[in-house]
């Protein structure tokens, strides 16, 4: 009975990974990474029961508690960054020196 939920979660992780790879903006990637984290919490909870190891739930609890800190760090990072250097994501195009910020 756990298999349906496990497989759905795994597929969703794959879909989120596709979104993280595609972009187009960095925020889409962060969103996908964040969603990846919450899906990992669900996956760990399900698998802990699938394998009959409920004491492994601590791992899911860890992610539920501290996974959002990374997103706060990203918000702080964006807030500190000069305004003009943010607009687009350069993965697909060429990297030119205009995108180098922080100095």
């Amino acid at each position: 009975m756990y298999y349906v939920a496990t497989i759905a979660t795994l597929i969703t992780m794959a879909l989120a990974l596709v979104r993280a790879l595609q972009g187009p903006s960095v925020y889409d990637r962060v969103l996908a990474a964040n969603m990846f984290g919450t899906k990992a919490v669900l996956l760990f909870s399900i698998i802990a029961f699938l394998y009959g190891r409920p004491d492994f739930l601590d791992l899911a609890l860890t992610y539920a508690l501290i996974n959002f800190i990374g997103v706060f760090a990203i918000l702080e990072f964006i807030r500190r960054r000069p305004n003009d250097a943010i607009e687009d994501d350069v993965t697909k195009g060429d990297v030119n020196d205009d995108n180098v910020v922080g100095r």
Partner: protein
Amino acid sequence: MTIIFGVFLLTLMVITALAIVHTQHLFVAVILSGIFSLLMAANFFLLDAADVALTEAAIGAGISTVLFLGALTLTGEAERYRSSSVNRVVALGVVAAITLMVIYATFDKPAFGDPQTPVQQHVAPWYIDTTANDIDIPNVVTAVLASFRGYDTLGEVFVVLTAGIGILFLFSATPTRRKKPQTEQESEVESTAEIKFGEGLRHFLIPQVVGRLLIPFILLFGLYVQFHGDYGPGGGFQAGAIIAAAIILYALLEGEARALRVIPQWVLTGMMAGGAILYSAVGVVCMMLDGNFLEYSVLAADPITGQHIGIIVIEAGVGITVTGVLLSIFHAFAGRRRF
């Protein structure tokens, strides 16, 4: 079914790793490496290695992203594209050779979970048998880490300490360039920038409220992981990372300067050294009580109680050192505006 899940997650990991190598935008690489760490933890979890998975979770979920971003504020976000064709050919050759060697090495590997392999027959059964009698804690991993192989763990603690010292040395060096005298206007700009940087996320109400609400719970969970390590997944390394994550969250919310006022740098430096000293001191005390170095059995009249005391104290030492080092590294990155 485990194999299928594992292969699926490993495939996602390979895709993520290729994407990390491919992207030239370092911010994207940081985010993708967060995903990579999650996949890694999931894989450890599938293979029943809960302690390792918990370590990966505690480090990868918050702290590594924060540290990477701290580094990016100092360096800039785009990879500097540098290619000379000679270097590329050499690099390709080296990578191809190593890949072939690794592939060749996998032919010798036993099947997954094969009970006949040396690793399953040599010391592992001995650890499993002896733990129940001599140490009497349910988590064999903690017994191996803290008692049977206490020397190794002491070495790891000193490696962590050395890393922390190295980073403090690197970052305390003041840059010799940029010595030109500042005009008044310039310094004024810098001081306003300083104020703006120092305030953290104080203007963002929802992160502020929720973050402050959760900090005590994270600290409590960290202590739980620290002292529950004998019975379930956990221990000093994981707990240190979780507690450091709570303090880093505070620093993000209130500004790094305020976090330094709560726990000043001299306390952190003391924690770095103190944890390692505490660990070593346990070993010395054992020697004074006519035991060998780190032979906890002599710590109490009953050898098993002695083992328990020793493991709890050295895990505390590990936790203190890891917290101190991680927070020192964080402050080293966050306190430095630019090179």
